[in-house]
């Protein structure tokens, strides 16, 4: 098996699992409980907070709120900020290539009376800075743009975006689900007000994610209840997942440079090999992209059938933004946003690497890819 869909789901790092498993059956105390089992749980919770804060160079662990998923962090950031600051403005901006868990809360707010501007990107997925500069006004309370895109790998010019947003607008939220642990992020230096991070993308368990909230940023709670996490995310803390996220963040910080250089070398070899296939193209930015990320399109064939062929015949797992593979039978909005025609978007293949991949995977995947394309083209009428 060569697993190349780490953007969709990643195995938990065995070192992380060894660290956090104790919170399942042994140290199972509720961090709000006053007895010793609860206090040690609270300590573990705060330690995890420090570790996540350190990964993104937050000024203080207090800036980190743990949630249950990246979707929830994005919802909290977007709905919480828009609703809390409504009196100061009702204009929101989002890029055209945001994840659906950013897009949909934005569209919901639009239905509830907010103005929403969708900022275009260029053919390589880079935000249109001039458009953004025009669009941001004193009415703009929130701009949400991903640090890097999970479908095309493009890394956005974070500091330029931050500068533009803060010239007139209020808060910048960035979804770093795909980027954290892969490219350096410094929320203070980069001027980010809200940042979404997910545990599983760092090699931690599902069930935890974080939202960084810069000091002074005012946001509303969107899930009322017991008032945990400074009142912003109610519910008994999932310590197993949170402690795991903390440990994964620690490894991510300590090993990012080395591990990403390793994955990038594999990725570069993979791209080189795959692009030898006839009528194959890289999607997204050729250089400003996640080091673990390769995305392609192949003319005249369709992504779901590529995916199935690779899985069934070669034991290789990849993703696709093809219309056929989506719930709505629409091509990925990201691929359309970078200017692909429907039929071009059809042939999309996304590969996201992780710790388990090695250079040995390159010839295997390249060969399988070539055979798959050949086989499917031989069936294609185009």
């Amino acid at each position: 098996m060569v697993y190349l869909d780490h953007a969709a789901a990643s195995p938990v790092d065995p070192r992380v699992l060894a660290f956090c498993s104790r919170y399942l059956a042994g140290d199972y105390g509720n961090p709000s409980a006053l007895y010793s089992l609860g206090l040690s749980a609270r300590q573990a919770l705060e330690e995890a907070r420090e570790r996540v804060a350190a990964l993104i160079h937050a000024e203080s662990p207090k800036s980190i709120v743990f949630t249950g998923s990246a979707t929830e962090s994005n919802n909290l950031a977007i709905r919480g900020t828009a609703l809390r600051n409504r009196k100061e403005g009702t204009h929101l901006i989002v890029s055209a290539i945001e994840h659906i868990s950013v897009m949909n809360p934005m569209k919901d707010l639009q239905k509830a009376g907010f103005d929403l501007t969708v900022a275009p990107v260029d053919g390589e997925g880079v935000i249109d800075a001039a458009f953004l500069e025009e669009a941001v006004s004193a009415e703009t309370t929130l701009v949400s743009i991903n640090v890097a895109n999970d479908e095309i790998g493009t890394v956005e010019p974070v500091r330029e975006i931050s500068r533009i947003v803060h010239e007139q607008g209020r808060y910048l939220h960035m979804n770093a689900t795909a980027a954290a642990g892969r490219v350096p992020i410094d929320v203070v230096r980069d001027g980010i007000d809200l940042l979404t991070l997910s545990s599983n993308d760092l090699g931690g368990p599902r069930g935890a994610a974080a939202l960084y909230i810069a000091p002074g940023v005012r946001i509303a709670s969107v899930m009322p209840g017991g008032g945990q996490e400074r009142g912003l995310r109610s519910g008994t803390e999932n310590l197993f997942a949170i402690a795991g996220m903390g440990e994964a963040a620690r490894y991510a910080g300590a090993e990012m440079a080395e591990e990403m250089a390793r994955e990038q070398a594999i990725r570069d070899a993979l791209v080189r090999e795959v692009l030898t296939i006839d009528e194959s193209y890289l999607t997204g930015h050729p250089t400003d992209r996640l080091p673990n990320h390769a995305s392609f399109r192949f003319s005249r064939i369709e992504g779901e059938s590529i995916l199935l062929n690779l899985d069934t015949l070669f034991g290789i797992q990849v993703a696709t933004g093809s219309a056929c593979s989506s719930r709505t039978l629409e091509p990925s909005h990201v691929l359309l946003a970078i200017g692909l025609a429907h039929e071009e978007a059809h042939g999309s293949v996304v590969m996201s690497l992780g710790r388990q991949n090695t250079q040995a995977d390159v010839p295997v995947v390249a060969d399988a890819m070539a055979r798959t394309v050949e086989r499917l083209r031989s069936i294609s009428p185009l």
Partner: protein
Amino acid sequence: MEDRPQIGYSKKVMDHFMNPRNVGDFADPDGVGTVGNPVCGDLMQVSIKVEDDVITDVRFKTFGCGSAIATASMVTEMAKGKTIEEAERITRSDVADELEGLPPVKMHCSNLAADALHKAIEDYRARKKEVAAAPG
């Protein structure tokens, strides 16, 4: 955006909670101060024995949380052997400091202990005035 209580008592608080010093009252106290806690509804009583304006003995009783018990115990230790003027100067934050800190949500408990001591001293002064004013 309210912060959660930083429950988690210092070793010193737990020591005073588990081994409270000077528990009880006196058959013939020279001053008694009882205060109720308006915040959470607890009750604290401090009794003193005084000789030549020096607090020679002091005892407490508390209906309250771990912090209330520990701060009361601490206040009795701090007041014992002090002149009443010195004892009057013991502040709420002195008690908390002496206990190596209290969780923020529990700061009002240290208020309670210092207040009860101050009330006991007031009571002592009032009694002394009465005695001085009494004929014969």
